[in-house]
């Protein structure tokens, strides 16, 4: 089965096989391949099978669809063709099925792992897979998170400083010796709340002795923080921002 490989500047973002159903491409989330870019129309083009041939049709998009550099309306695609939409490229490739991908080089001993038996992806396949995952991770990264420093700004309440840069994986808010955000009031808890940085550089706030509110609502589980979020806990108010 052929598949469509969505790329942006050498990074593979997504792979979609084309079976009997057509794959639509566009800026709207209803599409099989969504490209979130203003240069792409909401419903830009589609790829479908017709009599065993793989077809591409442009829906009359504003900025056009290009195959190997030529603007097209409706063409037959073949493996290796490069479809340009905005700054993204879709490469047509012959797909292998998931079984081949998972069990690797197809050695008989590995071909049928017992259910429940833990196995590793074959090393070469695994590296390709991890590179692919890494590429998606990079392209999905929000730019400010990389260039700017996540910071808690104290809006109200008694703390030892007015701002705290979140450099550590664990940040504790409380009176405890290990707390980064030190509370000064007499009856403040040792550990009111905690903020964890995950390996993807996202930040999550969780309850400790107190249940913090984010944007006025008490959290029910660890909650991801976004710039501008306001945290209230143990009588203080903090804003989560990215500083230059």
């Amino acid at each position, binding site marked *: 089965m052929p598949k469509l490989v969505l790329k942006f500047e050498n990074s593979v973002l997504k792979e979609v096989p084309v079976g009997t159903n057509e794959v639509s491409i566009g800026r709207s989330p209803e599409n099989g391949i969504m490209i979130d870019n203003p240069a792409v129309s909401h419903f830009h083009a589609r790829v479908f099978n017709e009599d065993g041939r793989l077809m591409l049709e442009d829906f009359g998009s504003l900025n056009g669809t290009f195959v190997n550099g030529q603007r097209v309306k409706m063409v037959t695609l073949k493996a290796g063709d490069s479809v340009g939409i905005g700054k993204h490229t879709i490469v047509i490739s012959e797909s292998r099925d998931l079984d081949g991908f998972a069990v690797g080089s197809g050695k008989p001993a590995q071909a049928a792992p017992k259910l*429940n038996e*833990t196995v590793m992806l074959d*090393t070469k396949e695994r590296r390709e897979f*991890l590179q692919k995952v890494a590429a*998606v991770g990079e392209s999905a990264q929000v730019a400010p998170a990389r260039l700017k420093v996540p910071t808690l700004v104290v809006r109200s309440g008694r703390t030892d400083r007015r701002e705290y840069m979140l450099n550590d994986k*664990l940040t504790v808010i409380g009176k405890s010796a290990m707390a980064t955000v030190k509370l000064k009031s007499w009856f403040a808890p040792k550990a009111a709340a905690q903020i964890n940085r995950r*390996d993807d550089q996202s930040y999550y706030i969780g*309850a400790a002795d107190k249940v913090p509110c984010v944007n006025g609502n008490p959290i029910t589980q660890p909650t991801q923080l976004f710039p501008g979020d306001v945290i209230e806990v143990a009588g203080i108010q903090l804003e989560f921002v990215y500083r230059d």
Partner: protein
Amino acid sequence: MELEYGARSDTGCVRENNEDSYRASPEMQLFILSDGMGGLECGEVASRIAVDTILEHCRRADLNPSLPLTGGRLDGVCDATNRLASAVRVANSAVYSAAQGSAQGRAMGATVVAVRFVGERMSLAHVGDSRAYRLRGDDFEQLTRDHSFVAEQMRQGRMTVQQAGSSRLQNVLVRALGIDPSVEVDTSEELVLDTDTVLLCSDGVTRELSDAQITAVLQETEEAQEAADRVVDLAKQAGGEDNITAIVLRPAARPVGAFGRLGKWLKDSA
């Protein structure tokens, strides 16, 4: 912080040998669990090498704090976490060497999850799909993110929870000890409250029991050992398809009953 711990490992109802290993060192406040994989007895060997190497590296570092960190220093985490990550990297090399030297060649690997408590902070390092959980009040939270194919797919939004749950590829790992000469270790740090319970477990527990079932056991049991026993027994009753290992950790200063809480309140406010 005083810790109470309970631990148990069981072959389960289907497998012939137990490829899980664990080590508990209450004096070092260090707890390690590993799930081995590989044919014949390689899985058992791999997991045992993993837990013993980590324990040994941490013990040597306690005696000699200037012992170099293997694989460099991580930013944003404390010394204990760096040491634990270093120990896991050393364990990777040890399992890798054993795999290279074995007759089966390369057919050996292991997961690992290790925690160490220093004061109110818990350092955590892991590779693979053995998990750490924390129960805080009613909130049962998975502290580790599986290095498995389906978990990676879910994180990328390419698979739903339902698809992952029914996938034939649930048992495929994308990261493990002993596969490559070096390994990336995930680390995190957690605050420990007196009322928290921490659970380390192999996938033999989580494949059989839901979060709600595990939460109920941890909430209903008084002793940590009783909790570990009941988690393992329940997983066996549910099928016990894989080896089952659970380590339950609780700060020993658990205030019990209204008077205990009053005493704790008086102590804390003093």
